[in-house]
């Protein structure tokens, strides 16, 4: 795909649901830091929502532990299409330092298909924003594939 998504090209607000499947919280606080005034993604219309049913983007952090496996699958199924899954951090992308344990089942792509990987331990808020921007481009592609027009969602 040749198009580059630019932040000014967001045509609607992006609703993001965050789920931690067993990480150390480092990525979670960098995601929260992205919402605070220094990085302030809310000015681009990105906001965290409380339920996967309203989300366009799933931000998954942490390596998948045994109890979270079913939960992550359920959350993925509850999120309506078109959706994008972003694996934030080294643990979500490749299990990071957590391997060979009786309770760790692996990186997120062992459970659900991932569209964007944001490496880092933890990735800086700028890197997370960059990942979300790339996800927007993919989301718009998926929308086109589903035949959904891009409406203003405000």
């Amino acid at each position, binding site marked *: 795909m040749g198009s580059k998504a630019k932040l000014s090209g967001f045509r609607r607000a992006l609703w993001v649901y965050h789920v931690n499947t067993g990480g150390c919280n480092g990525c979670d606080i960098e995601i929260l830091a992205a919402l605070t005034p220094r990085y302030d993604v809310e000015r681009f219309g990105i906001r965290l929502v409380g339920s996967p049913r309203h989300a366009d983007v799933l931000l998954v952090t942490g390596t998948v532990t045994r109890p979270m496996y079913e939960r992550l699958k359920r959350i993925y199924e509850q999120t309506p299409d078109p959706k994008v899954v972003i694996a934030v951090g080294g643990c979500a992308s490749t299990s990071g330092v957590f*391997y*060979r*344990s*009786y309770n760790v*089942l*692996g990186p997120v792509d062992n459970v659900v298909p991932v569209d964007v990987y944001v490496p880092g331990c933890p990735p800086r808020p700028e890197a997370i924003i960059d990942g979300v921007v790339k996800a927007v481009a993919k989301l718009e592609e998926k929308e086109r594939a589903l035949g959904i027009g891009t409406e203003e969602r405000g």
Partner: protein
Amino acid sequence: MRAEEVLEGLRRALGERLRSPRMVTEEVGHRVRRERGYIWAEIGRDDLLRTVEALKELGPLHISIISGTDVEDRIELIYHFAVGYGTEGGEVMVNLRISVPKSDPVVPSICSLLPGAETTEREKIEFLGVKFQGIPDSRHLFLPDDMGVHPWRKDEPDLKKYVRYTVEWEAQDGGEDKA
């Protein structure tokens, strides 16, 4: 509180049953040097409650953690207590080793004397298979109720079934991927 006082108090309470007591002191600090002390000793499981009572008399008692491992056919628990917080440099770490056979891994619970020990005792139940007599709540804390293995034991044959090799390079490393 000084380590000698604590050791004296333990000797008074237990006499000969305080086995291999060892007092270690070290100096910490840069220009201001302060001495801090540890006591390492072994006791039998029947003396545990009496020891905790003796420690409580010496000063405010805090249990940091119970660490444990298995050594051949015995399970060894180490109780890490801290006696005497509240004064500068005055806390002494008391580390008591208790060894029980795997065939009879029962230890009296100290929750009646120190209710805060419940979390750490419950953890030992699930990770090592120790049983605590008199514990108010013996449910699993961190592991599933139906987990059949004790992860910290070195001789658990079924543990391998739970361990997954999650990325390719590990599988090549000689591990197996268990679905």
